[in-house]
């Protein structure tokens, strides 16, 4: 096959730069694989490794420092047939560490070539994540304080199924690059090289010295058996094919008449774990069965099973603009935490408002009509009080009717949950008949 090097834009590296050699080696790998440019996308980011995409006649995407892997994910998931080859430097590895870890864990079929020359070449030879402690670099003494990162050990422990540490001067490097590209999964090559423009001005590093240093380390070459598993993209598509279509949201026709005319505002005051939000949704759905416009605005703390939970509901034959509630028609005081959060609201209540006060809940003095309920003797437990409170409302002829409530439950629930909830509202209704 023909070379994919871009003759109009030959490599512009410093004389003796390892990157220059590796770009030709990569080209040889492409040729050996018989790949044409449109089958490849080169993804690069910032630094000298970020020039790679310009040297090849392939598709190319060049982006922000350390983020090459992020673009590569999107490209590969959108086009599984493409060979996605990512180049990053040791600098990009440092700044984009989270993406490296995620790529290793994810095992999407990408090939990452880390062009590791132990410093930031372009900005003045500052230390990178791989700079040795004893190197002389453009960051003064700082590199003596930070332990260098072993990219391959990290990749391996993060789950990369193909990891190679090698010299950029290795004679069979093009074969190794080919194996990495052909590997079905995430492959990473940590390729060590010389940066004559910066690093070797003050540090002695030669291809021979690299060989010697690599020989001191435990070998990392190719497939990591313990990390061998299904490739992410294939796995994703298989799992996705088994998902059921989401379906359309319920469309509800009006078939009932609400017990009261006009706009009704309801506030449920409870606590986390009482399914306040679900009860609010049921009330809205009940409103829909009578052709009412509805809004549901919720308030809760970011904690899941602790703290107040409040739902504000408006049911109206007219379009609803403002979604806040200042003077509700009904307040369901189900738990102290919710009541305490909205103490100020009680001052606004007048005789037109109804408060349903659950046993054990203290409410501030107010002018509203108060209806006390105790559902414990009926065997209704606290997590069900919110839903039960809707039946209490319906039984009092307020806001919704029992048939609207039952219809809403049939829309929202199925099977056993529906049976239980219908049973629950019957029980709660009886408690006040």
């Amino acid at each position, binding site marked *: 096959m023909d070379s994919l090097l871009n003759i109009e834009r030959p490599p512009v590296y410093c004389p003796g730069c390892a990157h220059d050699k590796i770009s030709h080696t990569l080209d040889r790998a492409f040729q050996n694989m018989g790949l044409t440019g449109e089958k490849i996308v080169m993804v690069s980011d910032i630094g000298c490794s970020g020039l790679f995409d310009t040297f090849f*006649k392939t*598709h190319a995407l060049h982006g922000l420092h350390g983020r090459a892997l992020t*673009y590569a994910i999107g490209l590969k998931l959108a086009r599984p047939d493409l060979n996605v080859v990512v180049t990053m430097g040791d600098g990009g590895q440092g700044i984009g560490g989270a*993406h490296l870890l995620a790529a290793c864990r994810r095992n999407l079929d990408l090939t990452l070539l880390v062009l590791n020359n132990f410093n930031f070449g372009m900005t003045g030879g500052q230390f990178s994540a791989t700079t040795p402690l004893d190197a002389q670099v453009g960051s003064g003494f700082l590199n003596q304080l930070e332990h260098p990162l072993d990219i391959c050990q990290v990749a391996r422990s993060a789950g990369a199924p193909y990891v190679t540490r090698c010299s950029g001067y290795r004679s069979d490097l093009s074969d190794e690059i080919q194996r990495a590209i052909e590997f079905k999964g995430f492959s990473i090559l940590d390729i060590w090289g010389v940066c004559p423009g910066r690093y070797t001005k003050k540090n002695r590093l030669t291809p021979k010295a690299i060989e010697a240093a690599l020989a001191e380390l435990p070998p990392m070459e190719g497939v990591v058996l313990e990390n061998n598993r299904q490739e992410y993209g294939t796995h994703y598509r298989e799992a996705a094919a088994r998902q059921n279509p989401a379906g359309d949201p319920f469309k509800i026709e009006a078939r009932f008449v609400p017990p009261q005319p006009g706009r009704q505002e309801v506030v449920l005051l409870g606590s986390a774990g009482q399914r306040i939000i679900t009860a609010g949704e049921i009330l809205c759905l009940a409103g829909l069965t009578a052709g009412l416009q509805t809004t*549901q605005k919720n308030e809760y703390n970011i904690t899941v099973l602790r703290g107040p939970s409040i739902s504000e509901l408006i049911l109206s034959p007219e379009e609803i603009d403002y979604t806040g509630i200042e003077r509700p028609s009904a307040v369901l005081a189900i738990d102290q935490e919710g009541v305490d959060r909205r103490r100020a609201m009680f001052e606004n209540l007048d005789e037109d408002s109804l408060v349903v006060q659950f046993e054990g809940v203290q409410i501030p003095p107010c002018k509203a009509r108060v209806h006390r309920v105790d559902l414990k003797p009926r065997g209704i437990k606290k997590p069900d009080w919110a839903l039960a409170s809707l039946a209490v409302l319906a039984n009092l002829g307020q806001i919704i009717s029992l048939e609207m409530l039952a219809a809403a439950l049939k829309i929202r629930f199925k099977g056993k949950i529906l049976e239980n909830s219908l049973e629950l509202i019957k029980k709660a209704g009886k408690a006040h008949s």
Partner: protein
Amino acid sequence: MSLTLLEGNEAVARGAVAAGCRFFAGYPITPATTILNAMLSLLPPLGGVCLQAEDEIASIGACLGASMAGLKVMTATSGPGISLYSEQISFAIGSEIPIVIVDVQRLGPSTGSATRGADGDVHFLRWGNSGGLPVIVLAPVNVADCFTLTVQAFNLAEKFRCPVFIASNKEVAMTRESIDMDALQIPDIVTRAAPPGGKSFLPFQVRAGQGVPDFLPIGGEILVRQTSSTHGPNGYITTDHKEIGDIINRLKTKIHSAVDKLSFHEMNTAKNAETLIISYGVTSRAAKAVFNELKNTNRPVSLLVLKTLWPVPATVIRRAARDARRVMVVEMNLGQYVHEIERTLPDKPIELLAQMDGRLITPQAIKEKIVHG
């Protein structure tokens, strides 16, 4: 007529799918998470991809990659995530990568209040990119807008090859509301333009009379280059100041020259109104309540609800304010968009009602401001 109960975030997700979105990547954050949840139930069964990435930077990066492969893409986050998106947003602007970005605003600054609404990112969205180039920002008022403006956002992203923001708010996004799905005004779907013939393709070449380059995806027969570097038409980094100036000016002009075609708004005119209220997002609903209440009184007000915030719909604002003796801006922050109104209406007295404490601005507060100034 039938009604559906839908949350703003789910309406955004369904609008996106209706617009042809087939790639979503996000990172969980309240109050945007339910968009991620909805996309996860919607996209995979359609053969699309929904990804929970390792962080926000990766989420938007994956979207940019998928967009360059030709897919319609969306991501969603809140203020803290927009901060992390920032440089990738700059990339999308400068390199003309279509993407819809939903910012479900919560009360800031910083991690702020996860479950409290605000419209505090209005300037952040406009100016949160390196280079200060213009973007498009749409602001939904209700669940119906969440659906239709998301479709519009995709159309604009495709047409202008740029990021388009949905400036949502916890109070719209996580509020459930009844909606007549059959009555939605859904625009025709727009898809980025491919070059005619296609043989002499340069990735950033603009045809005569056009402001936006044609698009070919990475991975097709013709090689495509994309780069975050300042580039010429060929997609290679350039040092030619003319090429640099040309592309930067075009990035500005393509958005600004189209403003009158993308000025979504709702004008509510009351006869003999001396006061014009200008508002947007959830706050405009309180203003609408005031408009309705006062329209048949001896003190009516008119109301302009802006649904396009950027580019500033100056023509719409000037037209709405023509007969107003007094203009009042109502917004859920410390006063951000009011500066654009002051700039657009230099001869009008502009008043501000601003509140940023996690609560909705009430109709009562607006009425008091109208009466007492």
